[in-house]
């Protein structure tokens, strides 16, 4: 069992009291995968609490815009949010690390770090000044490298590559001569189709197929070095959480845990059929990043991470902790998961 949240004993109000919570998200309502987590969370909490805590889910833009979820939970407009912590980099740079960093840890390793490696208490520490309690809320697994209309055969091909690649990944690309472009998601499809950009990343086969990116690009690159194990988050307004009796607090935590595992399971399963459809029905060309390119990207990523950490002490503290764990788990996984995968899944 993961360690329980050190959230106080919970108020000892009479157990018949009912609570109505709002949960705002950064995804469109019913968004496949990511957007199902808050829906399932709400469903499970409503059921487990016997209706004492009912959670209503608001899609992006419904109550607040997608990137206002953090502020909305912090100020108590909504009791909960579902999003990804790297969106809050502007508020506290360390938040990026709890989602995913270029060449960082995969899903299994992130769950290990967060739940038993001390990562979660660092996350709570980082969010505490905002009055927000974070809970892991899903994982996409290793994402795909993105959709390209230009082939990447050598480092040279990265020069001038116009790619929508947000966050740290974009900064890494820029170091190798790429041109990270910021685009509203709304213009992404058109921009890729007309050639205003050469490439974009999205999530993985299941989401990418649903978004229809195969209709706007030819090559599908792997692996997603920029997001190797993206953790989604539930945010709970700390005051609202404290006002719950202890049993409802436990229900919130357990429901979040179940959803956290659930999303990874769903992606693992659904990506299979989606990739098959992309390759065999839609004739997409699947490409692996050339080794030479991956090696240089990784070097650039280390440089970028070190620079970012030098700017912010909290970021440095969290990153050091993260990297120590990654080193350890990396050594172990080389002789366990990796060694096994290499043998077991050879074609």
């Amino acid at each position, binding site marked *: 069992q993961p360690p329980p949240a050190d959230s106080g004993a919970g108020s000892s109000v009479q157990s018949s009291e009912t609570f109505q919570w709002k949960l705002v998200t950064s995804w469109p309502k019913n968004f496949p995968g990511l957007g199902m987590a808050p829906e399932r969370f709400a469903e499970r909490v409503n059921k487990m609490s016997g209706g004492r805590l009912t959670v209503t889910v608001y899609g992006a833009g419904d109550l607040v815009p997608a*990137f206002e979820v953090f502020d909305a939970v912090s*100020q108590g407009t909504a009791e909960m949010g579902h999003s990804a912590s790297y969106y809050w980099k502007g508020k506290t740079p360390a938040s990026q690390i709890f989602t995913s960093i270029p060449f960082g840890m995969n899903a299994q390793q992130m769950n290990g770090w967060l739940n038993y490696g001390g990562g979660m208490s660092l996350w709570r520490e980082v969010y505490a000044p905002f009055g927000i309690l974070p809970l892991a809320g899903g994982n996409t697994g290793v994402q795909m490298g993105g959709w390209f209309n230009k082939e990447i055969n050598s480092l040279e091909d990265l020069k001038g590559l116009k790619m929508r690649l947000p*966050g740290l990944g974009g900064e890494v690309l820029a170091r190798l001569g790429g*041109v990270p*472009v910021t685009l509203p998601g709304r213009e992404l499809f058109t921009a890729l189709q007309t050639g205003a950009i050469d490439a974009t990343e999205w999530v993985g086969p299941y989401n990418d197929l649903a978004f229809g990116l195969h209709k706007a690009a030819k090559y599908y690159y792997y692996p997603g070095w920029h997001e190797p194990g993206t953790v989604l988050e539930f945010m709970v307004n700390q005051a609202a959480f404290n006002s719950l009796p202890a049993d409802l607090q436990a229900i919130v935590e357990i429901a979040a845990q179940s959803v956290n595992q659930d999303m990874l399971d769903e992606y693992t399963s659904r990506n299979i059929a989606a990739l098959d459809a992309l390759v065999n029905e839609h004739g997409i060309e699947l490409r692996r990043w050339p080794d030479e390119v991956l090696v240089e990207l990784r070097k650039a990523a280390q440089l970028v991470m070190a620079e970012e950490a030098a700017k912010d002490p909290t970021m440095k503290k969290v990153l050091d902790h993260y990297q120590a764990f990654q080193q350890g788990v990396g050594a172990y996984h080389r002789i366990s998961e990796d060694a096994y995968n290499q043998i077991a899944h050879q074609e």
Partner: protein
Amino acid sequence: MVGWGLVDRIDRISERLGQLCGLLMLLMLLLAFLVVVLRYVFDLGSIALQEAVLYLHGALFTLGAGFTLKHQGHVRVDIFYREWSPRRKAWVDLLGTLLLLLPFLGFIALQSWDYVANAWARMEGSVEAGGLGLVYLQKSLILALVLTLGLQALAELGRNLAVLLDRESRP
């Protein structure tokens, strides 16, 4: 008269702000065009530049709202209004400003104060790695809107009052 001096002074401020916004508009246009040229012709991109365009865009209509009010640029449903006498129009505008516009602005300020203050407290920066990182300034534009529009609303109030008190008619 003291009252008139104040109205005139606010009018001048709004006029200056309007001209400033005009220059911001020109700057925004040039930078937005530069983004396209840099990317298409030179394969160069700058997230900071793209964000600068967005900030200018926001500044344009928040700082320019008072100027627009001074020039009667905020659209009305004038089915009846256009037929009414100057006195009656002044009544509508006086009451509208006191009961609708000023409370609305006050409410925006009240609701947004903490929101903006929090952004300042953490010197909130960009979501993007190469971003401009002045989100706290961009968010402050919400309060700037309240200030510029609110100020001009006071001037309009003075003008309406003058019509109703039957003073010499002023521009």
